[in-house]
C-alpha cells in the first residue's frame, strides 16, 4: 500500500506507467501525427503558390504555374494523408489499449481486494455503492486515460506546432488568429465547469428515478394492495420532473455557451479572412498562405473547444479515483500472519478462552465467553436475537477477529494459521442460502473445484437432493440463479448441504431454522442434516426442540454472555433462562410431539421405543 499519500491522479497515472513502452509509442505516434497534420495545409499552400503561382502584375493577377508541380502536390497530399493515417491509427489504438489495460487492472484489483476484505467491511458497505465504483468510476478513469491524458498531450503539441508554423508564415496574421484561441479555451472551461455539477446531479437523479421505478414494479402487489397508485405516480412524476429540470438546465447551458463558442470562432475566422485579404491586397501575403491559415483554423477548432472536457476528465478522475481508493485502501480487519503455517490434521476440538468481541469500542457483543467443544460434540446455541449466537460462529472461521481472549482449534490459536486452511476446516450451512449463477454441479462443487463427478453425486445423494436433480431436464447442468430455474428454499438448503458435505469439514456450523417447506421436504432436510453432522464437531444456532434436546452442550446466551451451559435435563432442572425459553417457544412443539406419539402408539400398536428411538 505504498504511495497512499500521493495525490490520487498521480496514483492513477502510475497504473498507466506500467505500460510505459506503449505510452512512449503513443507519444511518438502523436508527434508523427501532428507533423503530418501540419504538412497537409502546407501542401495546399504550396500547390496554390507554386503550382498555380498567382502573382501580381500590372492591373491584376496572373497565373503562371506548372501542371507537373500541381500533380506532385496532389500526390504528396494523398501521401501525407496516408502517413498521417498510420500515425493516427497507432496513436488512437495504443492510447485506447493502455486505457483499457488500466481499467482491466483496476477492476481486477477491486475484485480481489473486495473478496478478501473481512465481514466487518461488507457489513457496512452497500452493494449498490460498490458496484457504482466498480463500473462508473472505473469507466471515468478509463476516459481520463484516453481522453484526459493522451488527448491533453495531443492538444498541447498541436497548438504549439501550429502556432510556430503560423508565426513563421506571417506573425501579424498569426497574432490576429491567436487572439481568439485563449478566450475560446476559457469559455469552454467555464462551460464544462458549470455543466459538471449539474451532470452529476442528473446522474444522481437518474439513479433515484430508477430506484422509484424498480421498487414500484417489483412491489406492484403491495402498491395495489394499499391502493397507492396515485401516490406512486406522484412520487414518480416528481422525480421525473426534477430530472427534467436538471437535464433541461444542462441543455440551456450548452445552448448558451455553444453559440457563444461558435460565434467567437466565427469571428476568428472572419478576422483572419478579412485581415488576410488585406495582406494579400497589399502584397504581404500569398493566396496560398491565407488558404493555409484558414485550414489550420479549421483544424484547431475541435481541439480548442474540447479543452473544457479535458479539464473535466481530470476533475472526474480525481473524484472517481478517490472513491476507488476508498475500496483499495481499506485494510481487512482480519490479517494473516506472515509465514503462518497451514492448519493440518484437524480433530475438531474447539476452545473459546475468555473471548470478547465488539464491532466497535462502545458496545461489546460477546463478553468473556468460554467454550470447550470436544471433537464430535453437538453444541446448541440458544438465545434471543442479538444475544451473540451468530457472533460466536462467525468468530471461529475468523470472519471477524476476537477483541479479547483467544480461540483455539486442537490447541492452536486460529490467528497463527493461514486463513484458507482454517476455513477449510469449517462447513457452514447458512439460513439464507446463496447460490451462484452457475450450474447445479458448479454450485455443489463451489468450494471444491477439483471434485469428481462421483464425489458430487455422492454428496448430493447424502444431502437427499440427487433424485430431484435427476428429474430436471438438464440434470446437474441445470442453470440456477438469475435467468435460471428458481429453486425452493428447501431445495437450495439441500444443495448447500451437499456443497458442505463435499468439503468434508471437521467442524460444522448451521442454523437449523427451516423456512417454509412442505412436510416431506422438511423431513428430507432433517435427514440430510443428520448425515452431515456425523462425526463432526457441530455448532447449531438452534430453533428446534429436537436439536436442542439431542445436543451435548446447550449454551444459553444473553447479552453476549453464556448464562447457562449443560444438557437439556440439567438446564430444565436449573429452572432459569433455558426453562423460560423452553416454556415459551419450545414446549408447544414438545406437547404436540407427545400427543402424536401417544396417538401413533395407540393406532399402530407399536412399542413406544420404536418411535421415540434412542431420543431420550
Amino acid at each position, binding site marked *: 500500500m505504498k504511495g497512499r499519500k500521493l495525490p490520487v491522479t498521480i496514483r492513477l497515472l502510475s497504473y498507466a506507467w506500467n505500460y510505459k513502452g506503449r505510452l512512449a509509442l503513443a507519444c511518438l505516434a502523436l508527434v508523427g501525427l501532428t507533423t503530418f497534420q501540419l504538412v497537409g495545409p502546407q501542401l495546399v499552400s504550396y*500547390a*496554390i503558390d507554386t503550382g*498555380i503561382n498567382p502573382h501580381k502584375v500590372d492591373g491584376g493577377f496572373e497565373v503562371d504555374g506548372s501542371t507537373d508541380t500541381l500533380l506532385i*502536390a*496532389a500526390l504528396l497530399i494523398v501521401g*501525407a494523408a*496516408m502517413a498521417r*493515417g498510420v500515425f493516427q*491509427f497507432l496513436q*488512437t489504438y495504443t492510447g*485506447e489499449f493502455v486505457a*483499457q489495460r488500466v*481499467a*482491466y487492472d483496476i477492476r481486477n484489483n477491486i*475484485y480481489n481486494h473486495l*473478496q478478501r476484505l473481512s465481514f466487518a467491511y*461488507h457489513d457496512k458497505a452497500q452493494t449498490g455503492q460498490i*458496484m457504482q465504483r466498480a463500473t462508473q468510476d472505473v469507466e471515468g478513469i478509463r476516459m481520463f486515460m484516453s481522453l484526459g491524458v493522451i488527448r491533453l498531450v495531443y492538444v498541447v503539441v498541436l497548438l504549439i506546432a501550429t502556432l510556430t508554423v503560423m508565426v513563421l508564415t506571417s506573425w501579424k496574421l498569426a497574432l490576429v488568429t491567436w487572439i481568439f484561441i485563449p478566450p475560446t479555451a476559457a469559455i469552454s472551461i467555464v462551460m464544462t465547469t458549470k455543466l459538471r455539477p449539474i451532470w452529476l446531479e442528473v446522474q444522481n437523479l437518474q*439513479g433515484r428515478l430508477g430506484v422509484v421505478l*424498480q*421498487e*414500484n414494479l417489483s412491489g*406492484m402487489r*403491495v402498491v395495489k*394492495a*394499499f391502493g397507492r397508485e396515485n401516490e406512486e405516480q406522484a412520487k*414518480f412524476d416528481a422525480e421525473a420532473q426534477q430530472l427534467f429540470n436538471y437535464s433541461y438546465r444542462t*441543455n*440551456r447551458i450548452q*445552448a448558451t455557451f455553444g*453559440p457563444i463558442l*461558435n460565434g467567437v470562432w*466565427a469571428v476568428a475566422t472572419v478576422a483572419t479572412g*478579412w485581415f488576410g*485579404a*488585406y495582406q*494579400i*491586397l497589399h502584397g504581404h501575403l500569398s*493566396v496560398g498562405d491565407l488558404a493555409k491559415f484558414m485550414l489550420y483554423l*479549421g483544424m484547431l477548432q475541435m481541439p480548442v473547444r474540447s479543452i473544457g472536457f479535458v479539464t473535466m476528465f481530470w476533475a472526474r478522475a480525481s473524484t472517481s479515483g478517490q472513491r476507488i481508493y476508498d475500496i483499495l485502501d481499506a485494510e481487512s480487519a482480519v490479517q494473516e500472519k506472515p509465514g503462518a503455517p497451514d492448519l493440518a490434521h484437524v480433530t475438531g476440538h474447539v476452545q473459546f478462552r475468555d473471548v470478547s468481541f465488539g464491532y466497535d469500542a462502545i458496545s461489546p457483543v460477546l463478553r468473556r465467553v468460554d467454550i470447550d467443544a470436544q471433537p464430535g460434540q453437538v453444541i446448541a446455541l440458544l438465545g434471543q436475537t442479538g444475544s451473540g449466537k451468530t457472533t460466536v460462529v462467525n468468530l471461529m*472461521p475468523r*470472519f471477524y477477529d476476537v477483541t479479547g481472549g483467544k480461540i483455539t482449534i486442537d490447541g492452536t490459536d486460529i490467528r497463527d494459521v493461514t486463513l*484458507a486452511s482454517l476455513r*477449510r476446516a*469449517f462447513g457452514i450451512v447458512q439460513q439464507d442460502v*446463496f447460490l451462484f449463477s452457475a450450474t447445479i454441479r458448479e454450485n455443489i462443487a463451489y*468450494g471444491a*473445484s477439483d471434485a469428481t463427478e462421483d464425489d458430487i453425486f455422492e454428496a448430493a445423494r447424502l444431502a437427499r437432493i440427487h433424485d430431484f436433480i435427476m428429474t430436471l431436464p438438464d440434470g446437474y447442468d*441445470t*442453470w440456477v440463479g*438469475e*435467468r435460471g430455474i428458481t429453486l425452493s428454499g428447501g431445495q437450495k438448503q439441500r444443495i448447500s448441504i451437499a456443497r458442505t458435505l463435499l468439503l468434508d469439514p471437521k467442524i460444522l456450523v448451521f442454523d437449523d431454522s427451516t423456512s417454509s417447506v412442505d412436510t416431506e421436504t422438511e423431513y428430507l432436510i432433517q435427514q440430510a442434516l*443428520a448425515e452431515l453432522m*456425523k462425526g463432526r464437531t457441530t455448532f447449531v444456532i438452534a430453533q428446534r426442540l*429436537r436439536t436442542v434436546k*439431542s445436543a451435548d452442550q446447550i449454551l444459553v446466551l444473553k447479552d453476549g454472555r453464556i448464562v447457562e451451559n449443560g444438557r437439556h435435563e440439567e438446564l430444565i432442572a436449573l429452572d432459569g433462562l433455558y426453562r423460560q425459553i423452553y416454556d415459551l417457544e419450545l414446549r408447544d412443539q414438545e406437547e*404436540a410431539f407427545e400427543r402424536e406419539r401417544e396417538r*401413533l402408539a395407540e393406532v399402530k400398536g407399536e412399542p413406544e421405543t420404536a418411535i*421415540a*428411538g434412542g431420543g431420550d
Partner: protein
Amino acid sequence: MVFFGGAGSAGGWSGGGGGMGGNLRPNSLKRSTDGWDDDELGSVYSHRVVTRMAKMIAPYRFRLFLAVVGVLGFATMTRISVLAVSGLIGAATDGDMDRLNRWGLAYIAMAVLSAAFFFIQMTSTGWIGHRLLLRLRKDMFAHLQKLSLRFYDNNEVGRVMSRITSDVTSLQELMTGGMLTILGDVVGIAISVGVLLYFDVRLTLVTFTVVPVLVVTMAVWQAYSRRAFVRVRQAIAVVNANLQENVSGVRVIQSLSREDENAKRFDNINRQNLNANVNAGLLSAAVTPAVEVIVATATALVVAYGGYRVMNGHLAVEGLVGFALALQMLFDPVRDLVLQYTQLQRAMAGGERVLEVLDTKPEFEDDPNAIDIEDISGRVDFNHVSFNYVDDVQVLADLDLHVEPGETIALVGQTGAGKTTITALISRFYDVTSGSIEVDGIDVRKITHASLAHRMGIVLQEPFLFSGTVYENIRYGRPDATDEEIREAAETVGAHDFISRLEEGYGTYLHERGMNLSVGQRQLISFARAILARPRILILDEATANVDTQTEVVIQRALNTLLAGRTSFVIAHRLSTIRNADRIIVLEHGRIVEQGKHDDLLALGGRYARLYRMTYEQHALSSSANGDGARAGSSGNGHGNGHTPALKPAADPAR
C-alpha cells in the same frame, strides 16, 4: 449508470433457464431471440411509431417549427460562409478595397446569424426533447400502474424497466436529435453541393467520384463495429454481473475459501472484456484515418484538376480556395448520415417496444359507475367463483364461500390448491372468470379500486418495503397517519422495541428496501403497515413462514389483537395458527373439500385430519431418527434408514 443498470441485461447470455416462458402467454411482452433487446434493430421506418410520435410531438409544434428554422438556418449560414472567404480573396486579388470590406461585413453578418440560428436550434430541440422524454416517462408509468398483476406475473421487472429507461430515451433521441440531425445533414449536403456547383460544375463532378467510396467504407465499417460494440456491451454486462454476485456472496466465498479460484475466473472474464474493448478500439482507430485518406484524395483532385482549370482560365483562384473549403464541409454530413441509419433502426425498434407497453390493454379498469365503500362490516361472499390464470388450467372451480363479518378463515391445502388465488381475488388483483365476489353484498367489480384497497390489509410471505424511513414505510397505507399512530401500530405488532433500538429509531432510513434489517424485522414493519391502514378485511399469506422463531412468537402474541373484530383470511403452514381459526377451509384443486372447526375436522377423519397427522407424524419420526444419528455417530445411518419406509406412505400424499 445506475439508471440503466438493472435493465435486464446483466448475465443475460448465460443461457440455461427453464423458468422463462416464451411469447405464448397473454399479457407478455415480446422477447428478442438473444434476450438483448437493446441491440435489436428494426426497420428504418415504422409507420406506427412515426404517426404516434407525431401525435405526441404535436402540442410542441411551435417549438418544432423554431427548431426546424434553427437547423435550416444554421446549416445554411455555415455553408455559405465560404462564399465570403472566396469573395474576400477575389477582392484582394483584384485589389478592390470596397468589395473586400463589403465581403468582410457580409462575413460578419453570416457569423452572427449562424450563432443565432445555432442558439435557436439548441434551445428548441433541447426543450422538445426533454419535454417529450418527461411526457413519455409519465405516460408509461401511469399506464403501468393500471395494468393488473397478470402483466407483472408474465414480465420480469428488468424487461419492463429497460422499456421505460433505455427504449424511451432512444425514441426521444430519434424524435429530436435524430430527425433534426438528419434534416440538418440533408440540407447541409444540398447546400454544399449547390455551393460547389456554383464554383465549378466540372470540378464538382470529378470530386464526387470519391463520395461512393466514402459511403461504402462507412457502411462496411459500421456493420463490423456494430457487432464489436454489441460484444463490448455483453462482455461488460458479464463482468458487472460477476462482480455483483461476488459482492453479494462474499460471505459464502470466504467461508468456502474460493478466493483464488474466483480471482482466476474473474480475470478470465475481465480479459474477455478487455479483448472485446480493444477489438472495438481497433475498429474505431481504423475508421478515422481511412476516411481522412478519402477526403485527402478529394482534396488532391481539387488541387490537381482544379489547379489545371485555374491555369486554363476556367476558374478563378478564389473560386478554387472557396471550393476546397466547401468540400471540407461536405464530408461530415455524409459520414453522419451513414451512422444515423443504424440509429434510426435502433430507435424505431425502441419505439415499437415502448408502444407495445403503452398499447397493452389493462385487464380491467374501474367501472365508470363504481362506488366508494366507506364503513363496511366485512362480509365476504364468493358466489360460484371460477378462475384461471391461463386459458385451460382452472385454478378455482365453482367455489362458494360465505364469510361473516369478523370471522377468521384459515385456508389449508397443498401448493397450487388455490389458497393465494382466493385472497388475490378478494383484493381484485385479478378478475374472476365466472361467478362473483361480493364485499358487504356489493360486487367488487362495482367498487372503486382505491376504496376497496383501503378496506383491506395484506401481509405477504416476502415482506416488501420501500427505500425510505421506517415512518414512511409504516405510513404507506394511510398517508395522513400521525407519528403517534405509527408508534401505536408498531407497538401493537411488537415492532416498537427493535425500531427504537435502530440508530435513528423511526427516522432510520431503510436502504435497498430494508435489506439492512432481518426478514423478521421487515415482516414486523409490514405488519404494522397493514394494521395502521385500519383494514376491515385482513389477509395473512404465509406471513410468518420466513421469520425466525423469536419473531414468530412476537407475531403470534400480536395476532389475537390483529384478528379481533376483523374478517381475516389466514394462510399458514403452522397448525397452531390454523387451530384457532373460526373456520378452516380445506382446498384441493380449487375446490373446497372440507370446512369446519379444527376439532370437528379432526373428528371427521378426512383430508384435514390426514394433513394434520402427517405433519406431526413426520415430526415425531424425523425427530427420533435425528436423535439416533446425532448420538450414535456413524451407526445412526442404518438406523435412520430403517425408519424411512415407515414414513414414505404417510408423506407421499403431501406431494
